[in-house]
């Protein structure tokens, strides 16, 4: 068993620093605007949570290794080396108080993509053994068991049996040549199985062939959250292998933000080649089906509903319009949060924070931002498209004693599908 060392950590920083990182650090004028974009700062008022400050170890390595001034400073001992102690101290800043929501990346006046750098900085934290225990455990379970929550195929199969019984629909597994291979997040399997039922209904309604994959049903990628490309690669590879084995046309990312960015945006770069299949988020797919008339809904939710944008889906994923189109399809009283879409506020549990027990207290404090935002909207119910956000917000509501139901957008759409079978036009193959 090899060990994580500070040398490995610094080596990882050196590997990770690229031209954008160098440009970003060169440009920072310490204006502090990023703090105003970070819910961990706004809700605690503690300046140590200023996003750019979280990157000090990476910045220092960049300066010492990749700039003339830094090299000279190093030569004359004018700059402090990044030590294991420093990184231990920074664990709280790079993990507990950062969901990589990338809101700071949107406001930085000089254009620094801070979340991009946090993701890179975490590589060094992992290599030096400074990732928090909860996140490490999640990764270990994901690699060893196949799911960060330790959900095994047998648990999935058990849930499938329940769903099949409830809906009367078949949940296909390992169907070769299916058009779509759906991925799930463990949370959906364990906490929100209605999502799987919803999928089955929608695909049946639209007449689309789909399948789950017994070797790659888990969509979440703990490697991305902990910040290890090596672990992330291993997890993505399972999906790629499964998709290629089943020869599907596209892989559907479930209602989970980081799972989508992991497979859609990081995936090909992790495995080092372009995918032979497409990757699509379930909301994108639903919106496409809506636009092409292949799913038809009836009835509108009367309640005032709002939508929480999962950060990974909007800012980092680019799925912005689809949920709005879908919301308008099934609700008549949809109100936007004041800051929504790419300006949405994080639930506070992304980027591995929700699996990091040490961060629980901080996460609770930070959730106040979302809570107030939701309360200000006057909505009666909250819709979202991420199992993790949903769970985090449910916990948050409990903590703040807020009564507000949270729904998944996919299941909401599924609930409104036109029920008479076959009354719609025969779905056409696209």
């Amino acid at each position, binding site marked *: 068993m090899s060990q994580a060392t500070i040398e490995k950590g610094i080596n990882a920083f050196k590997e990770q620093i690229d031209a954008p990182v160098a440009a970003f650090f060169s440009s920072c004028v310490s204006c502090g605007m990023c703090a105003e974009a970070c819910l961990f700062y706004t809700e605690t008022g503690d300046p140590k949570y200023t996003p750019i400050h979280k990157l000090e170890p990476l910045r220092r390595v960049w300066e010492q290794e990749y700039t003339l001034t830094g090299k000279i400073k190093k030569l004359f001992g004018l700059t402090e080396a990044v030590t*294991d102690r420093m990184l231990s101290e920074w664990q709280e800043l790079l993990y507990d108080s950062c969901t990589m929501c990338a809101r700071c990346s949107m406001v930085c006046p000089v254009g620094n993509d801070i979340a991009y750098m946090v993701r890179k900085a975490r590589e060094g934290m*992992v290599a030096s053994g400074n990732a928090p225990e909860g996140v490490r455990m999640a990764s270990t379970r994901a690699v060893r068991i196949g799911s960060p929550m330790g959900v095994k195929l047998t648990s999935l199969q058990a849930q499938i049996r329940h769903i099949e019984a409830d809906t009367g629909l078949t949940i296909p597994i390992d169907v070769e040549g299916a058009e779509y291979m759906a991925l799930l997040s463990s949370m959906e399997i364990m906490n929100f199985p209605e999502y799987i039922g919803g999928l089955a209904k929608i695909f049946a309604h639209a007449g689309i062939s789909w399948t789950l994959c017994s070797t790659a049903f888990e969509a979440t990628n703990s490697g991305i959250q902990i910040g290890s490309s*090596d672990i992330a690669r291993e997890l993505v590879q399972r999906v790629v292998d499964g998709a290629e084995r089943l020869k599907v046309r596209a892989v559907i990312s479930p209602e989970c933000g980081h799972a989508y960015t992991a497979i859609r945006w990081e995936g090909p770069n992790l495995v080092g080649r372009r995918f032979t299949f497409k990757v699509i988020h379930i909301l994108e797919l639903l919106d496409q089906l809506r636009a092409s008339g292949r799913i038809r809904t009836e009835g509108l939710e009367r309640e005032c509903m709002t939508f929480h944008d999962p950060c990974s889906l909007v800012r980092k994923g680019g799925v912005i319009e689809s949920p709005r189109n879908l919301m308008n399809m099934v609700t008549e009283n949809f109100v936007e949060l004041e800051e929504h879409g790419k300006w949405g506020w994080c639930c506070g549990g992304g980027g591995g924070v929700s699996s990091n027990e040490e961060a629980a207290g901080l996460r609770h404090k930070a959730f106040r931002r979302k809570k107030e935002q939701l309360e200000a909207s006057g909505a009666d119910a909250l819709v979202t498209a991420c199992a993790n956000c949903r769970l985090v917000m449910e916990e948050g509501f409990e903590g703040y004693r807020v009564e507000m139901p949270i729904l998944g957008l996919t299941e909401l759409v599924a609930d409104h599908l036109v029920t008479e079978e076959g009354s719609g036009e025969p779905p056409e193959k696209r």
Partner: protein
Amino acid sequence: MANSKTLGESLRRHGVTRRGFLKFCSATASLMALPPTMVPAIAAALERAKRPSVIWLSFQECTGCTESLTRSHAPTVESLIFDHVSLDYHHTLQVASGEAAEAAREAAMHENQGGYLLVVDGSIPLADPGYSTIAGISNVDMLRETAAGAAAIIAVGTCAAFGGLPKADPNPTGAVPVSEIIRDKPIVNVSGCPPIPVVITGVLAHFLTFGALPELDRYGRPMVFYGQSIHDRCYRRPFYDKGLFAETFDDEGARKGWCLYKMGCKGPMTYNACATAKWNNGTGWPVEAGHGCLGCSEPDFWDAGGFYNALSIPTSDVTGTVVTGAVAGAALGAAAALLNRGTQGEAREKHATVTVDDLEKGV
């Protein structure tokens, strides 16, 4: 030779009436750039003023300063003052020559020991004193000897005041101004190349009138004449403020009398009275004639960049520096880039794949 007659007596001997004297006093106040309220004080002082002995030494100079002074037109008020002054030695103007001239200088020095006024034009060569001698006496020796008994020294012209043209880079004669040799006497620098005639006479008038030197600026120049820059007193200043500039000597801006800054006018850094005293008996002055100020009353004006380069342009070849810098930067940059790529590549090579077994720190 100096005698003890006062200026007042001297004027009356010339048949000047009281009204004439009053007129003379207001003209003198105007000449000294003093406010008209000073006229009674001037009258009282002039009434008592003693006739001083003046020794005028010319060193490394072009005689332009003397020319400027003697350009004084026919009998003016200034000339009245000079009539009153006992100019005991001036090798350009005096009749005596050779040993007789030197004897006159020595006689004046002895008779008025500690009381005569020494006027100097020209700079003094120190690289080799032999570069400039008078009657076999080097400039530096003559200056030291003559200055010893002077009440005050007036350094007329930029050469005497600041070294002037002889001191221009590379200063082959090692020229220095009076102030670098004489440090124990009051010195008034009347700079300019040449100085404005009325400024020379104005300073003399001040000395004569009040028996003391006027208030001086940091460069030892009389504040009344050098207190404000050409730029601040320039009648074209409003054009500068409005951003209207002549770009060439024959463009519309030049014809309309716009600001000459872009054509190299050194007015903003030049302190002199040209804009008000004017030249050629008040006819005009360089800027009024359409040419920028050369800055001739300032130290080292010869070396202050091209006469036709705007003041803000550095004296060196900026474009060349930028090009050279860019080339050198690219070479150094390429080296730095190689180093960076090396570091990055090495780090990537050293990468040890992280597995879930490697997440704990080594002990």
